[in-house]
């Protein structure tokens, strides 16, 4: 997605799946990944930091490779 020049809109999580929403060529494209074994995309999209953090705190999902920050609990 990054290679195609897509802009990350946000990441949604419904507890089971992660939905990565991108804006590409006038459309919203959604990629789906399982919550288990989630990888952080902060190195590709630094703006994803807040979205991942929100999901970490709401759903207890761990993103591998997420910048080490203190959780607000």
């Amino acid at each position, binding site marked *: 997605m990054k290679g195609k020049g897509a802009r990350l809109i946000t990441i949604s999580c419904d507890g089971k799946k992660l939905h990565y929403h991108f804006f590409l060529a006038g459309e919203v494209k959604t990629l789906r990944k399982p919550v288990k074994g989630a990888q952080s995309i902060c190195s590709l999209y630094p*703006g994803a930091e807040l979205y991942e953090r929100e999901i970490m705190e709401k759903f207890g999902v761990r993103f591998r490779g997420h910048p080490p920050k203190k959780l*607000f609990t």
Partner: protein
Amino acid sequence: MIEMPRIEVPFGPYHPALGEPEYFQVVLEGERIVAVDFNLGYNYREIEKHVLSFTWPKAVVLLGRICGICSSAHTQAFTMAYEKINMIEVPRKARFIRTIGAELERIHSHLLWLGLLGDAAGFDTLFMLSWAAREHALNSLERLSGKRIHYNYLRYGGVHKDLTKSGTDFLRGELKELKKKYSDAYEAFMSNEALRGRLKGVGVLDRDKALELGVVGPTARGSGIKVDTRKDAPYSAYDEVEFRIPTAKAGDAYARALVRLEEVWQSIHIVEQSLSLMPKSKLPAAKQRYASRKGEATQVVEAPRGENFHFVVADTNTPKFIRVRPPTFANIIAVPHMLEGRTMSDVPVVISSIDPCFACTDRVVVVDLDKRTVKEVNM
């Protein structure tokens, strides 16, 4: 060289120079800001979860309450997602009325921001002038929807009432007054050297950084990125009206201000065009819908502060899952970058330059950008 001690200064959650409750932690070395952390969540209401127990007609009302300023943007995104799922065609006149509502909202939001900027900078003439102009946008919204704020005028498949000839004439009259008064406010802003000096070069966000962080709306356009959902993925009647997207290259607070000021002119232009292009035929009020097909849809609309995103998964009687990404949530991450190397006095200016809306944004998040200054904050 004398080594300066590090001082952590809390800014908020309740601070005279901060309109809404939010906590910023500013780390200073002498006068210079070396790091900024922020903590969201003081306004958190969990609407995304709460709405799942609401029936469809009630859900749209609640989602309008996410924010008092971009009420139309939220209801519009949600309504359009529902219409996508149920494949509902919206009448042409209703699409124009939605466009008028959205643009009047943009005008009133930008004028509100301009007034607050003037007030924060001690330039109360600008505050008075811009809020006097804003009054006409609010009057127009009242005529269009019945309310001045939280104008819940959208229904699935249309709008809740028609805009008749007398309504159109009223809006034209209000726009004429608005233009006259806005010209004064515009002139007051442009001719004020002190205000320009206060904003120029402050809170610079260069183009590359803005692209990297994925900021949206006037914050992105002030850094020279031509991104606007109204042009990139036209909705309502935006493909039928002519307008341009103002951008500025400097990326500082002044550039963002100029973009917003120019956007007001463009919005007035859009409303004028919509009023004349709108079909003259009668538009019946859209009937209330209580059920939906099962499915999911995404929708982006351009709120006054940037792109507003809704992801809706529908069940028959209620929404099943909703995700709202308001524009400030995408923009707030740029604030620490804008503030680095500046002084404490620039903090309110820079924060207000992204025109943050914390009511939209709030969720339980802590961001600590500087590992050495990690601190737990109890709510």
